[in-house]
């Protein structure tokens, strides 16, 4: 059972990740590269000491711009999509095998949990954007994803009203607490680039999650039908 879940998840992950990678190569990566030109310029001026203390370790390996970087990103996307697909397939196995429409709904739930809710407090940022300490943001991000998953589960996967009300409360808690913000907000890249980046991130991720919901439900059902 576990092996079949893993196999079907990786298959669905690869399919959705390839779609995501194509969308990103055309719409998202060019904006990241453009933002990095501002970052590099600022670093040249400040001799490597920018205000937000950019964490690139000069001595650590990093993929060279070009095919190395593209392949790194595609591989990372595949790993990320497989990770998400594993969680979806786990949910399918706990509940019931979904039809395509339900797969799409699970995909949209994944979008809410892993993109939309964290983005409300910590919108996707271009390189060179001032932000609070990375650890604090990671904790808030993970806490928000967890709370959103729990909240949506209470809201949609059971029908007792007091628990549904609790679900709404759990959904709101991370946003009432508020995401960690930098002391001084600012970005090296122009505001218009940042706005454009946030929109294409939101759109490409929405397409990705819908594709992942559908593909994971298809591969999960195919795996189920095999003994």
């Amino acid at each position, binding site marked *: 059972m576990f092996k079949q879940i893993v196999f079907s998840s990786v298959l669905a992950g690869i399919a959705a990740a390839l779609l995501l990678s194509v969308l990103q190569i055309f719409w998202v990566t060019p904006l990241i590269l453009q933002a990095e030109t501002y970052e590099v310029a600022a670093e040249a001026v400040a001799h490597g000491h920018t205000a937000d203390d950019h964490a690139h370790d000069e001595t650590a390996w990093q993929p060279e711009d070009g095919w190395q970087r593209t392949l790194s990103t595609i591989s990372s996307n595949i790993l990320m999509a497989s990770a998400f697909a594993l969680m979806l397939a*786990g949910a399918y196995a706990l509940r019931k095998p979904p039809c395509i429409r339900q797969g799409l709904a699970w995909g949209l739930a994944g979008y809410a949990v892993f993109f939309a809710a964290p983005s409300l407090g910590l919108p996707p940022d271009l390189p060179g954007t001032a932000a609070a300490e990375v650890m604090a943001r990671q904790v808030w991000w993970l806490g928000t994803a967890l709370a959103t998953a729990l909240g949506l589960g209470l809201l949609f996967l059971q029908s007792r009203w007091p628990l549904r009300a609790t679900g709404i409360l759990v959904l709101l808690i991370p946003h009432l607490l508020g995401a960690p913000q930098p002391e001084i907000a600012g970005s090296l890249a122009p505001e218009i680039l940042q706005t454009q980046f946030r929109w294409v991130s939101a759109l490409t991720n929405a397409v990705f999650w819908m594709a992942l919901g559908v593909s994971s439900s298809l591969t999960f059902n195919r795996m189920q039908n095999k003994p």
Partner: protein
Amino acid sequence: MLVQTHSHSETLAPARPVAALSAILLGFALLLVVGFAPLAEIHNTTHDTRHANGFPCH
């Protein structure tokens, strides 16, 4: 599950939730590596994925 034969679902009964939870945990662990691991090499490799998908990055 309803369409499965009785004996089949009996053998699957304990394995299913364990497999499901293992899959969720494995997925979560993988997500932590791709989106959150602080190691410089992993950060550099996943850099664009982290930015493009809204993970907190440096």
